[in-house]
């Protein structure tokens, strides 16, 4: 088995701890989980629609804000989860040095807490979009959830990988910010892939997040909720990537205590 009963219990414990640290113990409590994304949504609506007058040719029917929103929060969940989880092993060096615990639970719990909290905001955003007239089809939900699951697998995998590498190369943390910014802007989240010059488009399509983003838009906005074989292949590939990262983490974790 991949996980023992104790590992699951430790994971649950840490997940709760991280979730509480983020939001749940603040004054307004869990409300922030929903308020922050909604405020962001309002800001984007104002900036991009009123000021930039942004338009996306392929999304004329649905409008720019829904086009951006359905893709933006999965990305945020992914990027935030990885960036917050990366220092989790180094930050918990005291725990690792004193208690025999499955170290992979630390980045996994940190990434999961961030991911789930962001996802809660995503749901709020989708509800607001639907309530304000965006035709979000419930039929697309299975495909959308599958893509979110892929995002989660990728986030978990990268969190494990980076948090282990961070032990040996502390500079990694600083490089991740610009790296993820580059990744964000090269992924068609704020714009459509049609804006990318033809010769670079093939390259852009290699980006796994391009696939996730375009399939979520297909599912929720473009009325194309039918599964393709490629979706299942993508899910399997994401899961395999995560398992590979678990193996790499376990290999690297053998030397943690020497370097922490």
């Amino acid at each position: 088995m991949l996980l023992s009963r104790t590992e699951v219990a430790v994971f649950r414990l840490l997940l709760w701890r991280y979730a509480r640290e983020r939001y749940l113990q603040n004054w307004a409590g869990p409300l922030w989980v929903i308020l922050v994304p909604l405020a962001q949504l309002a800001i984007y609506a104002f900036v991009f629609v009123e000021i930039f007058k942004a338009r996306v040719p392929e999304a004329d029917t649905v409008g720019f804000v829904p086009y951006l929103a359905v893709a933006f929060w999965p990305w945020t969940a992914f990027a935030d989860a990885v960036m917050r989880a990366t220092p989790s092993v180094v930050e918990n060096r005291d725990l690792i040095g004193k208690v025999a615990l499955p170290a992979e639970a630390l980045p996994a719990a940190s990434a999961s807490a961030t991911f789930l909290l962001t996802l809660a905001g995503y749901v709020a955003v989708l509800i607001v979009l639907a309530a304000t007239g965006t035709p979000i089809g419930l039929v697309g939900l299975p495909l959308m959830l599958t893509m979110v699951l892929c995002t989660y697998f990728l986030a978990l995998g990268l969190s494990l990988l980076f948090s282990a590498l961070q032990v040996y190369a502390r500079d990694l943390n600083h490089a991740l910010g610009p790296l993820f910014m580059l990744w964000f802007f090269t992924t068609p989240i704020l714009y459509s892939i049609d804006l990318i010059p033809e010769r670079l488009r093939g390259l852009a399509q290699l980006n796994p997040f391009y696939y996730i983003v375009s399939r979520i838009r297909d599912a929720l906005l473009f009325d194309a909720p039918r599964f393709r074989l490629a979706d299942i292949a993508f899910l399997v590939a994401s899961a395999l990537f995560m398992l590979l990262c678990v193996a790499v983490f376990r290999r690297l974790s053998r030397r943690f205590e020497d370097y922490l």
Partner: protein
Amino acid sequence: MTDCLIRLRGVSKAFPVSGSRLARRAKSWRTVLHGIDLELHKGESLAVLGENGAGKSTLLKIIAGVARATAGEVAVQGTFGALIELGAGFHPEQTGLENLKAGATLMGVPRDEIGEITEQAMAFSGLRDHADKPLKHYSSGMVVRLGFAMIASIRPDLLISDEVLAVGDESFQKKCIGWLESYLAGGGTLLLVSHNLYHVQKLCERAVWLHEGTIRSAGDTFEVVQEYLAFHEARLGRASTAANDAGLPGLAFAPEGRTSYSQGETVALTLDGSPEAPLTCALRRLSGDLIWERSLPVEAAECELPTADLLPGRYVVEISRPGAAGGVTRLFRITGASREFGSLRLPHSWVQ
């Protein structure tokens, strides 16, 4: 054997010294443990003695699975609780109660037993009034109490404790010792690191003395503790044993080569060569402190020293000229178990 909870075979541990964390192969390694062999069976209690930096904590961390041995085999069976340093695994922002629950989870206590365990631990620690305060407002002694109470409530097969008792106050220390004694009487197994030799002798049957990463001595606690104490005394008083024996008779044990006597035996010494001047015979501790001295009768050739009143330990017998520094010295050792400390047994009685 199924009741062997800990088995170490040739365990070594080296830490990389290099500053660069990227270097997979560090340029230099500092070896803190060299080929340690150790076994601990169910129901036994073992103390680990040693100077600061001898590798005691590293050894315990390897056994607790927190650190990984560089070489050798480590096999640990059964459930174990490790108290390694202050407040192992506790989170400063969370309350005492939450930390107890978290700690129990980390130790693998099933979910449905956690409520009961935390209840018992709260009662044992005597910190119920502080249960809902964040741990950062606890004193260090309170954190230790909480940690010990947690272990005491879980009652693992094996308890690994690294010098944590020293932090609790006197009454809590007594409570812990009392609990440990009942735990051992009930078949528990203890691995203890402590500089408090009183605790060590009270709780542990066996001891190992770790010196610069190797086991210098292992066996019965009383003997190992005595050797350990003798080592420290000798180091402090080494200068005084430098001999200046010109013109002094030779001194030997009879039979020759014997240096170890059990308590109550007679130490026989022979003087070889006639003394040219008045001499004194002295009994000293290894530190050089004088225990007893008298002038030697003229033409003395043999000396018999009954040891019934000497407590186990190492001693120096010394022949010297009165008033002169240094002399001929020979070391011997009294073995035996005693709960009295010092050099001499004094007649005493208790009135109740």
